[in-house]
């Protein structure tokens, strides 16, 4: 069988299993029959009101982080790049933490004040970072982008630290948010984040072949006929939309955006025509599983999912890395 087809089948199957585990396991076990048999009202309610939105949100966040991580690593030709490299996530965090710190609540927005503020922070940061990078260097070299991201990221990071230092009783709340969670968000959060996920992913997917060309350097891509400047701009915007919206609804969940693209690459190769979609699916699967562990491991209390991602992801990554390198050596 075609390797690419196999990759899609395996990834889709993993995702299905992850979704099924995510909705069925918990303090109350939900049988699979609940999907079509709504006679058990409690189970149906838990499935559709609590578990399903949570699993879908976890999936969307994981997918967004993984696909933008894959795109940024390819664009910046840097295996250490992740969705947070650009500093957009720090902007989203500052937006969220400001809301928590000042206890803000805009009447019309209500409980959505935080994600809306957070997205605003992400959008502002994105324009500032890209604008500044263009100001420094009109051709927006990869190094310029990385350095600009570091400048903005560390500045906003210090703003965060300042607020944490000055914080009193909301400390736990802020730290909890920063570590990331997808619990108790409901369908509205999904509706809020879905358009960004669709648009952002579509923009990145449109640039899959350009990303392949840019792996050989900007000059090479230019020679192959890629309009490097415009494509780079599109990828940065697409990735930022995904990252900003993901952070806004779930906090800064680490590891997924950095490592899922690497795992996918090690298993299925670095052709972006497949890598982007596969990372999207695998990111969703990983975060759904991590969230499942986060809420069941010390049940009835929950851990922030960001703690679990690295906890589970790192050994899995280590195993794949080891296996691949050994295979390469022999």
């Amino acid at each position: 069988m075609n390797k690419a087809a196999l990759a899609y089948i395996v990834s889709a199957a993993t995702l299905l299993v992850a979704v099924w585990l995510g909705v069925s396991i918990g303090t109350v076990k939900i049988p699979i029959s609940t999907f079509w048999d709504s006679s058990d009202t409690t189970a149906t309610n838990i499935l559709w009101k609590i578990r399903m939105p949570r699993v879908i949100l976890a999936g969307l966040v994981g997918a967004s982080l993984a696909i933008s991580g894959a795109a940024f690593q390819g664009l910046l030709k840097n295996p250490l790049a992740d969705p947070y490299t650009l500093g957009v996530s720090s902007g989203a965090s500052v937006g969220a933490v400001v809301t928590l710190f000042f206890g803000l609540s805009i009447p019309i927005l209500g409980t959505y004040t935080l994600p809306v503020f957070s997205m605003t922070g992400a959008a502002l940061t994105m324009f500032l970072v890209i604008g500044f990078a263009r100001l420094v260097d009109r051709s927006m070299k990869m190094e310029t982008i990385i350095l600009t991201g570091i400048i903005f990221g560390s500045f906003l990071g210090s703003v965060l630290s300042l607020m944490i230092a000055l914080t009193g009783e909301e400390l736990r709340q802020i730290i909890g948010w920063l570590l990331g969670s997808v619990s108790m968000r409901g369908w509205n959060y999904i509706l809020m984040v879905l358009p960004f996920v669709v648009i952002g992913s579509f923009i990145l997917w449109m640039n899959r072949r350009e990303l392949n060309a840019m792996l050989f350097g900007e000059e090479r891509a230019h020679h192959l006929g890629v309009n490097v400047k415009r494509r780079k701009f599109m990828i940065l915007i697409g990735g930022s939309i995904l990252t900003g919206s993901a952070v806004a609804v779930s906090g800064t969940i680490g590891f997924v955006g950095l490592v899922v693209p690497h795992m996918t690459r090690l298993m299925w190769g670095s052709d972006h025509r497949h890598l982007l979609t596969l990372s999207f699916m695998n990111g969703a699967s990983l975060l759904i599983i991590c969230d499942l562990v986060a809420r069941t491991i010390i049940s009835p209390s929950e851990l922030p999912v960001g703690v679990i991602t690295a906890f589970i992801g790192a050994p899995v990554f280590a195993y794949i890395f080891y296996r691949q390198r050994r295979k390469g050596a022999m």
Partner: protein
Amino acid sequence: MLQVDNLTGGYGKEPIVKNISFRVNKGEILGILGPNGSGKSTLLKIISGILPKQEGTVKIDGQDAAVYSQKQFAKKVAVLPQLHAHAFSHTVKDTVALGRYPHQTGLFSSWSDVDERAVTEALAYTGITRYKDTAIELLSGGEQQRVFVAQALAQEAPILLLDEPTNHLDIAHQQQLLDTIRNHAVEKGVTVISVFHDVNLASLYCDRLLLMEQGEIAIIGEPQDVIRETMIGKVYNARVKTQPHPELPKPQMTLLPEKSEESEPFIVNKEHFTVSAERVSLQVNQPLKTVSSAVVNAGLGWYRAFVNRHVDENYNCDDVKAEMSAYLKQHGYPLSDTVGMMTAVTTEHAEIGEYEGDFGTILVMVTAGVGNAVDVSQALDRERKIGTINTWVIVNGQLPEEAFIQAMITATEAKTKALQTENIKDPLTGTIATGTSTDSLLVAATQVGEHLPYAGPITPLGKLIGHGVYDCTVRAIRAYKIAKGWT
């Protein structure tokens, strides 16, 4: 077809490339040469649109390149970069397939049969089909560069730009790559413009060369017009000498290294010769620049040992060269360092003379057997027999190539005169002989000491050669006559 008019541009405000104009025709290969920092790579980058131009135009097929979109441009012009590293792995086929990027359109940009055929052809043409599923970073540098050649070929652009394509490649891979590109240019009529670091490679593979100096054109023309000692020496600020390629009408150059210290005075004299019944030999400590018509190591070269070997009158061998080589080896003469001749004359009758002029001395060695003498003007349809006059002329001085040729003429004339004096006749025609049918001549010079630009009979050197060769040949013929009992 590519035309560049008054092109000026570079990285910053101060242009690196100034006012460049040239034109390359379809199927032509133009090489861009120049010292480091002369702007050759910059020129290529401005043409390919990586760097901005400040003034001038680049026209492709008569149309200004600035109006092309990036994709349209890539359909017209493919660029082969220098070897470079890449962060993530790709298979060879995927890499080559990227060359089809400019030909794909639409959101889903379906891969057509034309694309597939172009990739398959490019893989086959560069000989990397068997690697097509290998990850590119597992290939050697030479193979990786071939992958990028294939990528550029798959682009199917009528113009190909190359920036030092053979950098970091060994000579076999350099040749392979440039042969591939040149064949492609010839077969498909692709126009090639390439930056070269290596002047000799550029001369071999290019139809025309453009030599750059400080951002401007120093000269543009065919290799023989560009690769001239004075021009290359001035632009590169290096001491060079040009010479013809041994097989192709393409000039080549070699560097002349700075002579580190004053070379020791080194003079060849009679004591360096050894004469035995088997051979006459000359052995010196430093190599002599030699031109000869010997059996082993004939032609031009530098040698330290010279052997004139006596063989039996009935000596007969299918492969004289191999037999002679074996003989030299057996007697301890290194083959790479020895010129070997043969004669049927007993070498004890060799005449060796040392002649002194104002500039220094010359040595002449002659062995003469005239049993087979011929009048060269009537030498048609003659059976070849042994019977030889072998002449060596060793000059203590520095000779240019033309002086070597003049020395050979002078020595030959002197030999002929000696035959006349000794009244040696061609037994078939009864006329005065001019030599034998298998004569050999060797002229060697120490290349230290006095510069001796000419060796014709009008110069002191020529006079000395004429006198010396005549003198030795006459004496050698007389010795031969006595040995044969002719007198």
